[in-house]
């Protein structure tokens, strides 16, 4: 759909009044798994919102989050997990996991979780913020206004942090990169080490800003 002339005129006026400072090319934070990093061209982009969409239930979001948490712990990087339905099971990461730079924010619903994300991104101290909305109801997620996501995008740009939003369907209108998980796992996967599951993960990456599109199939 083409924008109306009035909108184009307004955009020009705004661009003249508030010129954007050209930003340096953002670097990336490694996900901790080469396969994800290769697909994301170096990892999760700093200063951008990345949305991880589980295309079906049990699509394997843990493969990405587990690798990311372990990589961040090893790198001594602060990670905040905003748990929008208080669903995180830390025991799965293992007793030896280093939680010294891990912040768990247990929220009752998606609206509060978004407020918590806003506070943490404004803070600017935490370099990786994960907003987990996977178990929240569709009604809750649809209540989040699109401008909220653009506000978070602006905050991420200012803090040069990574904001990873895990969702059950496309929710984040401002996401620069969308990682769509297509994995269909069986009960055997629950007893298999993640190192063995990773090569079998099916996903695709859509970079909305750069129109990048990758399809990676299993095997």
């Amino acid at each position: 759909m083409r924008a109306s002339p009035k909108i184009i005129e307004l955009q020009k006026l705004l661009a003249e009044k508030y010129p954007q400072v050209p930003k340096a090319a953002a670097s990336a934070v490694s996900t901790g798994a080469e396969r994800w990093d290769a697909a994301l061209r170096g990892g999760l982009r700093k200063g951008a919102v990345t949305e991880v969409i589980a295309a079906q239930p049990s699509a394997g979001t843990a493969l990405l989050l587990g690798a990311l948490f372990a990589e961040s712990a090893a790198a001594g990087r602060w990670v905040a997990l905003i748990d929008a339905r208080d669903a995180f099971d830390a025991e799965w990461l293992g007793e030896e996991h280093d939680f010294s730079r891990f912040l768990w924010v247990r929220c009752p619903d998606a609206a509060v979780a978004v407020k918590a994300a806003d506070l943490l991104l404004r803070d600017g101290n935490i370099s990786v913020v994960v907003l987990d909305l996977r178990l929240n109801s569709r009604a809750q997620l649809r209540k989040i206004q699109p401008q909220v996501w653009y506000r978070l995008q602006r905050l991420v740009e200012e803090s040069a942090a990574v904001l990873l939003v895990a969702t059950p369907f496309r929710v984040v209108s401002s996401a620069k990169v969308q990682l769509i998980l297509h994995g269909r796992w069986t009960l055997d996967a629950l007893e298999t080490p993640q190192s063995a599951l990773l090569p079998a993960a099916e996903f695709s990456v859509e970079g909305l800003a750069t129109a990048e599109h990758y399809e990676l199939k299993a095997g």
Partner: protein
Amino acid sequence: MFAVIFIPDFALQTLLRHEPELRARPLALIEDGPLVSKVRVLQVSAAAQTAGVLPGMTPPQAQARCAEVIFRKRSPAQERIASEILQQTAQSVSPEIEATGEGIVTADLRAVRQPDWPALAAGLVARLAEFHLRAQVGVAESPDLALLVAQLAAPWRVIERDLTPLHALPAKVLPFSAQALAILQRWGVRTVGEFLSLPKDQLATRLGTEAVRCWELAANRRTRLLRLVRAEEVFEEAMEFEHGIETLEPLLFVLRRFLDQLALRLDAAHRVAHALHFRLGFADGGGHARTFAIPSPTRDAATLFRLLHTSLENFTAAAPIIALGLRVEAGRAVADQFELFDHALRDPNRFFETLGKLTALLGEGRVGRPVRAPGFRPDALAVQPISPQEKSAAPMLATAPRIGLALCRYRPPLAATVEVRSRQPVHVRTAEFTGAVTDVRGFWHSSGEWWREDPWDRLEWDVQLDSGALCRLFRERGEWFVEGVYD
């Protein structure tokens, strides 16, 4: 040389430090006594003096002269704090100081090299003005003469070897009794110079030791040793309110004033705040005290204020607040040396302020790092608050291999209706989803804590539904639940 810092109407000025808006109004300071009839006006503001209110009057007499006069009681706490400020300020120019009297401090400046006395005196006046104290500073060759000069200064005065500027002053500036002053008046002695021209031994014969003391003082023949004190490094502000405070805004307003003052004092002492001890007194006699550790010690008033503000946002009290105190635990600034690959917090103070805001948003026990509670009870996770004092440990270079997918837990578990065939679940229905079971593993039996009132004893199954979802079911006390979804 000696410098004397003199705060006129000391008790009144200490009271006005945190209420500068009262300066222009007629204010009378009264000393509270056990008998109402004994209450007298001690000191008065300039506006009250203009209206005819004088020290020594009873409150009704003062009110008869000026109906708008405001009465305030002395505040020993604020006088003590102002004395500390005075001594700390004096100690910034000399380590040898004497607490000469109420609102009077003498500093021994004989060790000062290449002195610029006017600059020093003006600096002391300016420094105390930052603490809302109107000081007069006198610099002279002896402590007593310096005190005399300070009492005459406006706002500072330096009298070096040449005492002739003193000679033109009226004789009453010397500490004569009224009787001695009257005798001098009858003799026609009007000025200090005329008094000094009288022979000392004849004065002793006629007027006694009092006249000799004044003569030696004016002639700079009198000296004494200072009773040295060391200013304590106590950084505290306190205030008692005439009317109880019931909302946060006025409390924050006063706190900000306190912090501005404390930051100045810390700056002068080259110290930073490591902790803030905050206390409140309530109208019902109760109190509240709390200590705020400063993650990254600082003397920045705005940062300290944000920390207090965030923590007080959700504070409630049963009774109005009538007293407020804030004490800084001061120390030297800490220089941190980070590891080469250490990702330290950029601004620890801001981080802990954000944690405070998150706690205010979510409640206690909702923000921190996950810790496993002792025992084997399923989902026995708790949140450990992140403490400002803790030192970050070196990052672990390797972590244990992770198995399978993570369980996203429903807290509390979802009540489910499960259809069972041959002791295995075949269909699951919950308030959130429903589906036929296509694959199942289990059951596993686990139990524990039988000695407690709430033991656990359950059977668990891992199931795959026709939607592809992998779930964990469990049955306890005849009820079915979905514990979570693997993802």
